[in-house]
């Protein structure tokens, strides 16, 4: 990847009670999730990228466009930056109809093909029937979809989404998540996406940036960041890895599908998947047990051979978290200290991981 294609964000912002110091190189495609507790600086960072905040010493470059460079004294005001921004609470213009809301940016960006982009977004988000309505008659989920279409209508070079689902109840959230997945897969707009929901991270992220107290704690491809065993990003019961694979074969008799990923394959429930389809698999650490030998005659359908790479103490003294490398993929497993001792396992040992549950996400 050419470095000039990516996204460069260097920001230093000092406030009396908070300091944000970040230096990031991000890929130019897919969804980059900014993840972290509230107060970690996610929104402030995004506002800096948009030019809504002005850090004292900043460098913001999107592709070949410099939006801010204090060395060269460049600061492009927000309205001249080629971006789309979806705020946490869908901030529709209450005095305009839905139609006029989505057309607001379209009229002003005057880009070629923008009308087509808007029609596409309206269809993709399923909001065509809402056009004549006023914003105050829409549900929260509808408002958020309209806000996304409005942002997409300018055909932005970068789409910024600040917890677009946070203001919604779980039902609405599940209504919008598939639309976001569609956007990610159908449009080639790179997105920065803020969330503090682990569920949204595993479903949407291609790249993951973890923020803590205003600085970057981890950054990388989502499957790599989630596979870290030291100071895990998602801890507790939800700790686990994300595997990205393709549908290799389908078993019609048992309604199962085989998913190949670098370093192995697993059988999962077949949710009418297509051969060759890209899927994300979530394997939780608590759903894996390990043994020194391959288990025969087992009702556990998925068993992978790998190397024990690391062992660290878990939250509870009875437990340990282990990292197993199988080919290019990594699994995390939570096992008891007693079984580790009984199996006489140490790092470097060859082990078999039995996976009880693999959930297919999207």
């Amino acid at each position, binding site marked *: 990847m050419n470095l000039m294609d990516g996204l460069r964000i260097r920001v230093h912002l000092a406030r009396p009670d908070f300091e944000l110091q970040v230096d990031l190189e991000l890929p130019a495609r897919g969804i980059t999730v900014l993840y972290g507790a509230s107060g970690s600086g996610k929104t402030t960072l995004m506002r800096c990228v948009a030019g*809504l905040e002005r850090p004292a010493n900043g460098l913001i470059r999107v592709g070949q466009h410099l939006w801010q460079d204090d060395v060269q004294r460049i600061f492009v005001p927000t309205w*001249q930056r080629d971006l789309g*921004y979806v705020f946490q609470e869908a901030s529709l*213009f209450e005095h305009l109809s839905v139609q006029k809301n989505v057309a607001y*940016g379209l009229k*002003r960006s005057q880009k070629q093909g923008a009308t087509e982009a808007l029609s596409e977004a309206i269809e993709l988000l399923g909001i065509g029937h809402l056009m004549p309505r006023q914003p105050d008659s829409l549900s929260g989920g509808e408002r958020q979809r309209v806000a996304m279409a409005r942002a997409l209508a300018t055909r932005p070079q970068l789409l910024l989404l600040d917890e677009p689902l946070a203001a919604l109840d779980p039902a609405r959230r599940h209504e919008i998540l598939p639309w976001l997945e569609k956007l990610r897969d159908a449009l080639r707009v790179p997105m920065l996406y803020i969330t503090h929901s682990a569920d949204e991270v595993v479903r949407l992220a291609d790249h993951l940036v973890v923020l803590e107290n205003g600085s970057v704690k981890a950054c990388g491809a989502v499957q790599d960041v989630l596979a870290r065993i030291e100071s895990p990003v998602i801890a507790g019961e939800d700790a686990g890895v994300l595997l990205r694979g393709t549908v290799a074969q389908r078993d019609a008799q048992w309604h199962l599908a085989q998913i190949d990923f670098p370093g192995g394959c697993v059988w999962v429930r077949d949710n009418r998947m297509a051969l060759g389809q890209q899927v994300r698999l979530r394997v939780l650490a608590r759903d894996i047990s390990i043994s020194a030998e391959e288990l025969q005659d087992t009702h556990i359908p998925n068993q992978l051979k790998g190397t024990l790479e690391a062992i660290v103490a878990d939250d509870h003294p009875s437990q340990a978290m282990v990292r197993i490398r199988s080919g290019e993929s990594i699994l995390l497993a939570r096992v008891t200290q007693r079984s580790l001792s009984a199996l006489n396992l140490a790092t470097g040992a060859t082990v078999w991981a039995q996976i009880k549950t693999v959930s297919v996400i999207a």
Partner: protein
Amino acid sequence: MNFPLNKDAWDAIGLTLELAACATLILLILATPLAWWLSQTRSKWRAPIAALATLPLVLPPSVLGFYLLVAMGPHGPLGQLTQALGWGVLSFTFSGLLLGSVIFSLPFAVQPIQNGFESMGVRPMEVASTLRASPLDAFFSVALPLARPGLLTAAILSFSHTVGEFGVVLMIGGNIPGKTRVVSTQIYGHVEALEYAQAHWLAGGMLVFSFVVLLALSMLRQRVGRVLP
């Protein structure tokens, strides 16, 4: 019984409405940018300017009228300026009355508009800027329409407040029939001349007018409130 309103009274009513309409128009044009500035700025001048714009609200009209009279007079700074520009002296003219009315009613125009801008928060303007709207474009396409209830309130208050002013008019207008005599000074004249029947008709008319304005204002607020939460 005589016809209750004579020609003088109708002249006064016509002049009052003309004065109020002109003052309202000028006030909206002046107060809107001032209110916007007050609602957005972090300048150290904000507090003094805001106090100055509110001053007519608490100042006795006779005090304001007195200073205006002095300033507009042939030797006052304003008088010198208007004379140099070839406009003559403004005191005891309609223009002078208009200037006094605009200054006197300024807080009634600025404050509702400023409240309108402040209550919409910064978010709509930020959203507009992320949708390629320049600050000026966003002001006209987003801020003004969203502050519409405040603008309506400002217009109605400015108009009715100008209709009801007395002290400033008396000080700088001189109560000249057909030229600077408005309804409120006309009533005063009737009472001085012990023409209570005439005074009743005009005073009653003002009472009804004021009531209708306030009623219209509150109904408008309800209606606009539904359209613009």
